[in-house]
């Protein structure tokens, strides 16, 4: 089933056009990778999907992006509800300078959801279990999240999203700060998470895209050059530029 449909999306930073007529369809409960060289607009594209580009002055967009049938680019869309549904994991693990527990409870508290101490405890436990941190951290819930390892921090950031019941998870180079072993374990986690979540990952690491994703989009200079299932992109690319990129001739 299609979770997200992007139709003729254009985006300008002032006079610079960063996205050119991008169209794509993202399947529910699958992992889609967006690959491409630095500056091709893949992070910009990702940030359209939860309207994080709104924070930058002078950004204009045109086109349509439907998530669950709702055009999220329309003026009257509820950004708070959108960002609750479409969460984001950033390149640098960025937990708040609070305890592990408070990091996860943050989302529930700001959304004004009703909770008791027991339900909050349960949500924290479930979220940590989902990212496989519970066994490591169950005795350290009130330690500062800044004292964790990089990998644990990134897992915690994912758990923080799951606690607000996101159902789309955007990942912007989530492993670029991690070592190869940690990267491998985060990729395993992604495969686990896709049972319940729609995941879109931006990466400049082609091997990573090939390993974890079901579908892959290749972007170049703001255009979506090719978008297909990962197997065909990597074995039988239709566009010459895609082939040149995945065979390492540039990028």
């Amino acid at each position, binding site marked *: 089933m299609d979770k997200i449909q992007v139709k003729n999306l254009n985006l300008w930073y002032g006079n610079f056009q960063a996205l050119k007529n991008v169209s794509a369809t993202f399947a529910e409960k699958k992992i889609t990778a967006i690959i491409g060289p630095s500056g091709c607009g893949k992070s910009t594209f990702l940030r359209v999907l*939860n309207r*994080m580009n709104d*924070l930058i*002055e002078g950004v204009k967009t045109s086109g349509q992006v439907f998530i669950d049938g709702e055009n999220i680019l329309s003026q009257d869309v509820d*950004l*708070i*509800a*959108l*960002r*609750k549904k479409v*969460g*984001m994991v*950033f390149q*640098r693990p*960025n937990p*708040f*300078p609070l305890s592990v527990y408070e990091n996860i409870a*943050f*989302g529930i*508290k*700001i*959304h004004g959801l009703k909770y008791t101490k027991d339900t909050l405890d349960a949500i924290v436990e479930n979220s940590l279990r989902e990212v496989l941190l519970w066994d490591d951290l169950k005795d350290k819930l009130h330690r500062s999240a*800044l004292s964790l390892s990089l990998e644990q921090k990134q897992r915690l*950031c994912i758990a*923080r*999203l799951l606690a*607000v019941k996101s159902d789309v998870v955007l990942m912007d180079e989530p492993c670029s700060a991690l070592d190869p072993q940690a990267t491998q374990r985060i990729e395993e986690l992604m495969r686990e998470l896709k049972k319940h979540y729609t995941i879109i990952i931006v990466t400049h690491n082609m091997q990573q895209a090939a390993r974890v994703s079901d579908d892959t989009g290749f972007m170049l200079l703001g255009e979506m050059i090719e978008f297909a299932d990962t197997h065909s992109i990597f074995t039988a690319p239709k566009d010459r530029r895609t082939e040149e990129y995945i065979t390492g001739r540039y990028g």
Partner: protein
Amino acid sequence: MMNVRLKEKIAFFFLFLCTLFIIVPVGMIVVLIIKKGLPALTWQFLTDVPRQGMRAGGIFPAIVGTVYLVTGAVVCALPIGLAAAIYLSEYAKDTLLNRIIKLAIVNLAGVPSVVYGLFGLALFVVWCRFGASILSGSLTLGIMILPIIITASREALEAVPHSFREVSLSLGASKWQTIRHIVLPNAIPGIITGVILGIGRAAGETAPILFTVAAFYLPKLPQSIFDQAMALPYHLYVISTQVPNVDEKIRYGTALVLLSLVLCVNLIAIVIRYRFRKQKKW
């Protein structure tokens, strides 16, 4: 041609000498005031009212007056200053109006203190009919320390990493929730530092309180914010220039109390800033 290494040594020595020279006046002031003022410091001096035309007794009303005025100034300036700092660092876009506001803050910091005194006299004492009172004095001092509080708070807010704001917003928090729960708690030490620097400034100034609150001689303690009060800097001025034959040790004792008060407050600011820097891990 002079040897490069010799030039280096001369330059180093000259620069070092100039730097060393800075601590000379500081050291002399502290030594002089302690030496001459310490003999006056008795329990009675700190807790008694001035007697025999301020030639004997203590300075208790002036200490209390200064504490009231400084507290009043912070109560006036902190809410406005903090709110302005939050607006300027979190909401303000780079428009002409906002640039004018920032310029006004810089200029406010450069206004001579005696001008604040006259301004307070015209606005609060006369026009608002508060009379010469703790209220008028606190408001005047409050306006004087406003730029200090705004500048320090803005710096503290802007030092909170951008990524914290970004994550908070990406989790669906509103801008105000982000400020309230993420930005402000991380900026508090810097804001406190600004408040304390403001306290130091407000405690030591004479000119702004001269026309707005300070009493020449008032042996009883103020009963309300509409009363006049004595204050340490003005009392020091009075016993040094307006009253003949005041024992030198009373003058230096008063100066010592004022200096200790300001230095203590500055020391607290330094300790807080130091602990903040040590904790900061991002």
